[in-house]
């Protein structure tokens, strides 16, 4: 039987540099800083969180920045989170065809790094899976938060999960990048508890750009360039019985 892992007590990041991940109108902590998430994934492939607990995290829970493939969060619980539980933000580049609103060409040098309409280099989260998991009591500080935020990412699967008690949409598809995603077998209720007019799932249109300013570094789980890493509690472990690591205390 494997030992469980919990992630807790990361500090707040709502004053950190933010940007616009894409065509939607949600802001998010800029992805090049590893404190964007209590668990920060960049350059990974096959990372798995099985029966983990993400709790008492005052910023985002799991943040996938740039290239990530097939990251999986399954049989896990994400709760008591200040911002979003899981956030994806990929990078794109200029295609040479960018235009301003008047149709004039925009040189690639005028675009901030990581922006543009060309995602063909694959530098985005793809194949992310959130399954058989609980997400609730999120967005304590940042009301524009969701259980899964998808910005310039594609082929995400959200399966057989239960989401409830959030301030805004439980799932935010923030742009039209790639898509190919699937949501199936989920139950969701009590979204928009601290706003109105909206939805359990929020999809939006075209891709856009992000900006960044300055930041400071803090201690966070920073998982870069891992291959087939599994953080595994055992399929039958109960989240309530899991010990918590306290490496994230700030």
């Amino acid at each position, binding site marked *: 039987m494997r030992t469980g892992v919990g992630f807790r007590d990361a500090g707040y990041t709502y004053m950190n540099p933010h940007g616009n991940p894409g065509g939607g*109108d949600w802001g998010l902590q800029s992805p090049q800083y590893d404190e964007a998430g209590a668990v920060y994934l960049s350059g990974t492939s096959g990372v798995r969180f099985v029966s983990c607990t993400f709790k008492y995290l005052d910023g985002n829970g799991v943040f996938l920045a740039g290239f990530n493939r097939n990251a999986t969060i399954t049989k896990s619980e994400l709760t008591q989170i200040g911002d979003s539980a899981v956030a994806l933000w990929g990078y794109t580049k200029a295609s040479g065809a960018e235009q301003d609103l008047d149709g004039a060409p925009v040189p690639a040098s005028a675009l901030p790094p990581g922006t543009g309409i060309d995602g063909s280099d694959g530098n985005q989260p793809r194949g992310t899976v959130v399954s058989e998991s609980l997400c609730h009591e999120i967005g304590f500080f940042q009301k524009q938060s969701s259980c899964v935020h998808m910005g310039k990412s594609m082929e995400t699967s959200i399966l057989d999960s239960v989401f409830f008690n959030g301030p805004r949409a439980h799932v935010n598809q923030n742009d039209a990048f790639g898509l*190919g995603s699937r949501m199936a077998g989920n139950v969701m209720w009590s979204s928009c*508890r601290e706003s109105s007019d909206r939805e359990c799932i929020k999809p939006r249109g075209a891709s856009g750009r992000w900006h960044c300013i300055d930041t400071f570094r803090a201690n966070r789980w920073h998982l870069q360039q891992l291959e087939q890493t599994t953080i595994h509690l055992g399929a039958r472990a109960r989240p309530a019985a899991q010990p918590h690591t306290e490496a994230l205390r700030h």
Partner: protein
Amino acid sequence: MPGQLPNLTPKPFVIERNFLVSNYGSGYGVDNDDGSAYFDIRDNVFYAGSGLKSDYAGHDKHFHGNLGIGLSLPCGVGTQYKPGHEDQCYNNTIVMRSGQWRQFLPAHNSSYPSDQPWVSMWACDVKQQQPPRCGTLGSAATGGPSSLAKVHSNTVLNMNQTSGDVQCGGPGPGNPPMSAAEFRGKCGVDVGTSAASRPGAAEVEAMVRRWAGLPATQ
């Protein structure tokens, strides 16, 4: 793909077999806002809120095979489409939300008829009878003709509301909703049937169980 030219047409985003409850401030189960496109929303159960939303020039969204309980606007279309890229709302079963629903919570559990149309097409124009009928002719400068959404084969369970099924064009005193039959005659579109009764709680529960794949009650 690496080495290939960027392609602006994404794969569809499939949303299927979910149970989405729009309580608190939620107005939609799936809010297709701000031009979102290429969604396949099928076989879900929606409670309260609304159905298909098409807004700010979104397109290529298919909303079909869903069960809606206490919905206010199952097929809401606030835009128009390049032919071949229409949004579609079909084969849905909808138990309409009652009028003055806040007085009759839960929203479906009333004999008070809905006071809203169940199809809304703001870009619809009954005076425009050339193909695309009731759509927009347009011109080369404006990108050519624009079609209405494809709405058909829906079953709407309501309470004797037959006069206000479809809102064609913007709402207003001079443009009230018309019946499905009237809309079929003026625009040639058969949006579906509107029944004269709304099921009771036990029947609604049975419908939800059937859609969600849950066992029937003993």
